């Protein structure tokens, strides 16, 4: 615990100018669910803490079939979990949010915070990657856009420059015949950090055989959340067969570059990537073929890998 000066921004402009003034000595907080823990541990010792939690314009959620989903950076993880449009159109994201910490923390934690904390194990990140989220960044020079898959540069590190703030995430509208599923593997059934997490989003051509679109997001198996690119490319534009899915699962395993820690060895994590990728693809494919899965069931998958 170190002393800091607490600053509160009421507008985006004000926040950017505070960040410009204090540079690397400042840290942005919103829900503070990461900050308070790290500060108490003495890991983060900023001289200035800039609270952006009261900038109302960053709280908006909007969805349209044409533009997709827009999430202000301050949208709570609890909102991701419970918002009806998110649950029905981006169900893997809602389910991932449901697996995030406990309800009290989900009420405080923000989606922007989860993204900017850039933990390889961030619970919403594999699903956001799999839904192809784009990041809107505001800064002294104006706005710029970065794909989420390009946003992370290392554990806890992002492309954000001094004075920049993540303000919005945009998820393109889902294609027809899409299924998505997130599976989190963790020792405990709730309130636990992922040993690994896999989110798959698959869309089929009208005929229901050929893969039109596929994204697989992997959590906690590399220095940042990543896409399983070689697994994805195996299926894109091809007729989906059980053999191909197994190959994709093996390819995803090769895409992963995990480390070992208190939650599991590198080898175990790598092995589990194949198992969970296979399971998410199997179920997501089933959903894409018109067999919906109740959200409550998806939530169970997200919280426990046991089935």
């Amino acid at each position, binding site marked *: 615990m170190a002393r800091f000066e607490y600053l509160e921004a009421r507008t985006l402009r004000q926040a950017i100018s505070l960040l410009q003034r204090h540079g690397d000595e400042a840290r942005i907080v919103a829900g503070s669910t990461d900050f308070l823990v790290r500060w108490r541990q003495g890991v983060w010792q900023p001289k200035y803490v800039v609270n952006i939690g009261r900038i109302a314009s960053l709280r908006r959620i909007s969805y349209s079939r044409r533009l997709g989903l827009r999430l202000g950076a301050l949208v709570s993880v609890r909102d991701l979990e419970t918002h009806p449009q998110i649950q029905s159109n981006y169900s893997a994201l809602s389910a991932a949010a449901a697996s995030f910490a406990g309800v009290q923390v989900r009420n405080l934690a923000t989606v922007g915070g989860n993204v900017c904390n850039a933990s390889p194990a961030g619970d919403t990140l594999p699903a956001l990657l799999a839904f192809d989220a784009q990041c809107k960044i505001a800064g002294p020079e104006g706005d710029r856009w970065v794909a989420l898959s390009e946003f992370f540069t290392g554990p806890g590190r992002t492309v954000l420059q001094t004075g920049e703030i993540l303000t919005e995430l945009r998820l393109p509208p889902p294609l027809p015949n899409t299924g998505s599923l997130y599976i989190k593997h963790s*020792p405990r059934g*709730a309130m636990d*950090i992922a*040993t690994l997490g896999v989110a798959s989003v698959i869309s089929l051509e009208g005929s229901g055989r050929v893969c039109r679109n596929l994204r697989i997001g992997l959590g906690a198996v590399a220095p940042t959340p990543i896409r399983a690119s070689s697994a994805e490319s195996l299926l894109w534009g091809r007729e989906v067969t059980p053999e191909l899915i197994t190959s994709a699962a093996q390819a995803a395993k090769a895409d992963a570059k995990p480390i070992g820690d*208190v939650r599991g060895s590198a080898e175990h994590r790598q*092995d589990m990537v194949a198992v969970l990728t296979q399971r998410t693809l199997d179920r997501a494919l089933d959903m894409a073929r018109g067999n919906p899965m109740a959200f409550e069931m998806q939530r169970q998958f997200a919280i*426990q*890998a*046991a089935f």
Partner: protein
Amino acid sequence: MPEHIALGKSLPRVDAMEKITGKATYASDVYLPGMLMCKLLTSTESHARIVRLDTTRAEALPGVRAVITGNDYPDIRFGSGALRDRRIMATDEVFYIGEAVAAVAADDEITAQEAVELIDVEYQPLPVVVDPLQAIRDDAVPVHEDLESFEGYGFAGGGNNCTLLDADRGDVVQAFQDADQTIEETYQSQPINQGFLEPMACVANVEPNGRLTVWASTQGPYQVRAQLASVLDIPLSRIKVIAMELGGGFGAKLRLAFEAFPAMLAMKSGRPVKLINTREEAFTLNGPRLETNIRLKTGVMNDGRIVAREAYSIFDVGAYLGAGPNAGVGHALGPYKIPNFKLRSYGVYTNKIYVGSYRASGVADMTFAVESHMDSVAHQLGIDPLDFRSMNAVEEGDISVSGARLPRNGLRETLQAVKDRLGLPKKMGEARGLGIAMGEWRSGSGPSTAAISVNEDGTISMLTGSVDISGSDTSMAQIAAETLGVTLDQVVVPKRDTDMAPFTGPSGGSRIVYSQGKAVQMAAEDARNKLMALASDRLGVPPDALACENGKVYVQDNTPQELTLAQLARMSLTSPQGPIVGNASLSSMPFAPVYNTQAAEVLVDRETGRVTLTRFVQAQDVGVAINPMSVVGQLEGGAVQGIGRALSEELQIDSETGRVLNPSLATYLMPLAVDMPEIETILINVPTDDGPFGARAVAEPPGFGPPAAIANAIYDAVGVRIKELPFTAERVLAAIKGQQPKAGFIDIEALLSGENPLV
């Protein structure tokens, strides 16, 4: 069966309202005028000489009122177990990462922390030994160079081997020769933390009369008082310990913890000082359990009779013998008749955080090994594991390891109850399995006292020195109420301290209701006898014509002659015998072991190794349940702790430095409600001869069986025997894939080798 007024009723706790409204006061809730906050500087080295310790810069920081180091304390070694091997604060050497080196008292917590960071300390590293299997070798690096000077060291083996417990009977060598089959296995339990929710906290203050008052979070206020007097080298009579509400202890708070730091700072600064541990400190400063390696060898006849058992265990104590020698040695037999045995348990020092107690220290580890091994032996013999247990189970009249004769007990009833509930034997589906385990615990004993006074309004004041643990105050008040024939709400249970209440043993080891409750019953009987004598005198009838029920003493043959307790209490004030006070003191209780049987059903994911507990059933002989709701709560809580130990809990320790790697509730994974199936608890009632109303101990046994029951269920489900705790997905998957565990078979006997004089 007469109608009971309080006994056997599931009444709410006497302190329920203050607890659920958040008004109950814990040590961290104590605020005194001028109170300072304390922070600790702890060792960053596993083993090192302190070559320089300079507090000048810390003392100069504005707001800092006192700084102490080990040199502020008298040059005294103390111990919590059989050895005096430890100083309260490091002086010239540190023995583990996290050991306290200095402490600061300042106006607020942040200033205290800043001051801690200004203390200059320089270490000269010394050789380190972390693995207990290395540490016990003759050529190992010694953790303590000067251990020959430790008081009580005659108890020890040599080198880092600080304790040996042994038990022998019969001719083991011959018995193994005569046995049809011999089965030998090694098991390993993991380091674990007790998981109390309330981190340790205390406030210390020097009163105007020079006495020291300590508000503590403790299970043993009299033990804290005695140890505090010893390390501060002041008379015990100068210390008052106030035991505040306890937010979980499970053995971790049985002894002196950090009370001596704020106490010394209060003495030095002249101001009250508060210390609240961070959660990290709750994991790194004192008292978890460390690993135990257990090798079991069993000789059996083909008909299923066990004829011999050898058990060697190596028990890692860490840097000091915190909790004493391992209690598990006698439990290497399990609750079975084994005519020939040789049991050895070796304690060994390593450069790690030292061990504390945890819900029958050592017994849970041993039960995991023994009850897993019982299944291995049964499978080798081709006998159903339940039948195998049944045919070898101890019976009334058998002689226990300690030499005591086994009294009447409910062991077989617990086995039968679980069998009936689950419809055993039964075959589970694909990747599903079922396993059982049995457990045994002597009922806790030790010094117990109580004083019962009858107030002028007829209410009862019950004074005991014991700390409420899991509702024990309520059970004891029910015992007093039942004995005196009043309802529970007529019993006043005052908060007490070591000045006010007579000495009693700590709240631990399942001793409170069985032993302390007995003292309450005896004191209440004493008060009742005095009430009857007074009533007999006033009503002019002999005492045996009277009854004491429903708040009054009346003549039994239906005449309307009666005196209320209020009337009698008022009369007593001017009677020759004076006010009605019942007293009782006892030092120990007869041997009355408690038995349980626990069963787990699991589902194993063959691809991920994940084990899901789908059902848990347990039956325990509780003698008589004073408060069934409280008893069931204890049994469920214990089972949950055992399930956590089985599936996810592990204090991970760096193999090079002994550092705790996961000192937080985010990384030390205790199970949650969502991880638990409903726990089905069956109470068996085989009363004891001596416990209050026939009650037995309750608390320790439910934590014993889950690891073995779950291991046996995993074996039943997927045919692999997991011998290391916990059963993480990774470990189970490795076993399913046929990979050898890293520990493998440990030949403890060979390790100790012929040169070791102890073997």
